[in-house]
């Protein structure tokens, strides 16, 4: 019991520190790229700014509904099946990759249902389009995960990391990595950490709640992005495997932040992506066909090596 409590506290600590550092990075980098100074509210380079923001949200009056509460709990439940190292995992399962993906689908579902409460037909129509976008981005993710599972022949995330002790999966699946990263980037643009959330803020309506409700939606947005980045690091970039003499945990953190930094820079270089037509076209004309091709190539490779023993 005590061991589980200790693990929970560790995971909460990791999540909290990440939240503070990432929100600091987001604000500072976006300000610097626009030739602004960034926040001047607090001293020490604005290090305490994330905490100030949280207290600002909490000070306001709030109104909660049932979907927001679901969202809040599920954005923490999502971390139960994800390993941060060989031992730091709450529930040990044989096929935790499936659980993680399912959890993620549920989280996206709740955030969309929360966004799409409306009695106006036109607005409902617009939200439905965004739901479609979020879920159609899922197809390349699932394809690339399944082709990776074919190579590693396991559904266990810890075993997948163990498999990469010599070569990282990015060498076997370069296309899959690019697809996963692009899909994560598209999700990031949709949930919008730097700007307002494009799912919640459309051209016709604004609702992101005030006070605690706003805090919850922000938490869930951060949580979804962290989850995608952690999954990419684990699946393709060898998670906590050590590199020469560098400690595995440090490598994990380093990879996570490098990916996060690249995503932030890409975000500043591209305009807002809330155009349904454009997103659908890049998804169905670029991401999905390439992921299918990648899957077929992997199957051929798999059959040749494991069934006919040709390679």
């Amino acid at each position, binding site marked *: 019991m005590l061991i589980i409590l200790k693990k929970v506290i560790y995971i909460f600590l990791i999540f909290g520190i990440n939240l503070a550092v990432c929100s600091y990075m987001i604000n500072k980098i976006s300000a610097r790229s626009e030739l602004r100074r960034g926040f001047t509210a607090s001293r020490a380079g604005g290090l305490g700014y994330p905490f100030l923001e949280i207290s600002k949200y909490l000070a306001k009056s709030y109104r909660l509904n049932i979907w927001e509460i679901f969202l809040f709990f599920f954005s923490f439940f999502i971390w139960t099946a994800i390993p941060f190292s060989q031992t730091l995992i709450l529930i040990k399962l044989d096929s935790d990759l499936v659980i993680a993906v399912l959890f993620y689908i549920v989280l996206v579902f709740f955030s969309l249902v929360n966004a799409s409460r409306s009695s106006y037909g*036109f607005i409902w129509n617009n939200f439905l389009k965004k739901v479609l976008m979020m879920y159609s981005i899922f197809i390349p993710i699932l394809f690339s995960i399944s082709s990776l599972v074919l190579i590693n022949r396991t559904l266990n995330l810890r075993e997948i990391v163990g498999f990469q002790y010599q070569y990282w999966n990015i060498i076997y699946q370069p296309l899959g990595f690019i697809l996963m990263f692009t899909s994560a980037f598209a999700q990031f643009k949709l949930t919008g950490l730097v700007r307002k959330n494009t799912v919640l803020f459309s051209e016709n309506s604004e609702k992101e709640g005030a006070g605690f409700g706003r805090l919850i939606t922000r938490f869930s947005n951060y949580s979804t992005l962290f989850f995608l980045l952690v999954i990419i690091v684990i699946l393709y970039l060898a998670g906590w495997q050590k590199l020469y003499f560098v400690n595995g945990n440090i490598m994990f953190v380093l990879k996570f932040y490098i990916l996060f930094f690249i995503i932030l820079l890409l975000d500043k270089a591209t305009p807002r992506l809330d155009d349904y037509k454009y997103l659908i076209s890049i998804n169905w004309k670029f991401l999905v066909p390439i992921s299918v091709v990648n899957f077929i190539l992997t199957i051929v490779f798999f059959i040749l090596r494991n069934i006919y023993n040709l390679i």
Partner: protein
Amino acid sequence: MAKELYNGIYSSHKLVFIERIEKNIDYYLKNRVLEVKRLEQELFCVLSKSNLTAVLKELKENPEFDIQVINSINLFKSNGTYCLLIDLSSVVNNYSILLKVLLNSATDESSRQEYKEILPAIVQIFKAAEFYMSRNNLKQSYNDVVFKNQVFDGLDGFDIFLSTDYDIIKKAYFDTTISRVLPQNLNKSFNLFDLQTSVSRYDYSAGIFPELCLCLAVEELLKIKVSKRVQYIRILLSELSRISSHIYFISGIAKIIGADMAHSFSLLEREHVLRILETITGSRINPNFIKIGGIKKDFKPETIINIKDSLSRILKSVYRLETLLLDNSIITAKLKNTGAADKDMALACGVTGPNLRASGARYDIRKNRNLMLYKDLSFLVAIGKYGDCLERVQIRFREIYQSIKIIDQVINDLPDEYIKKPVDISEIELEYSEMISCVECPHGVFKIFIEMKNNKVLNLVILGPSKNSIYLAEKILPGNRVEDVEIILASLDINSGELMS
């Protein structure tokens, strides 16, 4: 040659052309027109209500006149009688004509009734006149989607009513009643001295142009010839404010698309340009600098060095801004093929300025008329081909480069002359007289019709280009998506100040 032209030894070939058309009007419409005048470079006709349709038909069908464009229709009261002011222009023959139609009615209500009766006859000849009819029935039928004023940034002069099929717009209607203000309420008094300071409010993004237009009109009436240095300084100021207005337009586009870096860069660049304007005039938005017969004060030689230094920097950063905004495939994919207006449609709506040039018509008042000293300077008129949103943005960038070229020439050959003091307004003595003047402002052709007696302005009619842009928006919105409404309207550069009339 340029010096002799300036001194008036040779009359410009454009003026000769207008003289010929004036003679033709005298010949063809002798019995139907009460009076024909040439007010500097524009023609002005007075006619009675009964002859209107015959005159319009003659003007449209006779190949000597060849008028296709109706720019605006205004109802106003002059000397106790109600009049209709119809602005017509011909892009092919390169001239424009103002018809003043005398109405029979004596009261406000009966004049409005008469206005409603006349319009259907005009619509049969010029279809674009339907925009000036009362169309309340459309408001009730097109109400699937309603955008109230102030929904979009900077576009707060009208409500938009749309009828849609899923997200494709079928019909559009713009209601501009909210911005309909009587000029008596808008301007505190019609004293010329007060009007000079308040006229720049008609254009909030480039306030120098209404001032310039008013001063040109009064100078023409008083037959004042201003010195070359003053003319050059006026050109310098107007080109600077054109650059600032265009950069402001680009910042608006970048904000709608969501390109944060381009948005903040463009606002910074506008700041550099506005700082130069501020050092010369002392104000950023309402300069109040151009006076009748001169300017408020001459600037020092240090400011010229200052402008020279910052000009190259502005050129470099505008180029950087263009690459940042238009080298991005996501942005160009969004702008391309949205809100396309072909040449015929743009001409029929009476659109002028960069919006018309984007759809392929070479029409620029700076080249086509004898405006100030633009004939001494060499620059190109940027024209597009397809007239979509991307083309409209590109045209603005190219115009900025041309403006920088003009400023460079102006600074290099600025003559060192003594500037006379401007005319004392209280001493002006004039008979009752009318005047038209026009300038090429960043949104299009800004035209003023003015009636004066001594130093008192009896009537001031603003014929701005934004009304025509709204009419064009009504035409091009059908077929586009509801999500694109904001970007199409922003790309037309509608200035809500001019709508107030």
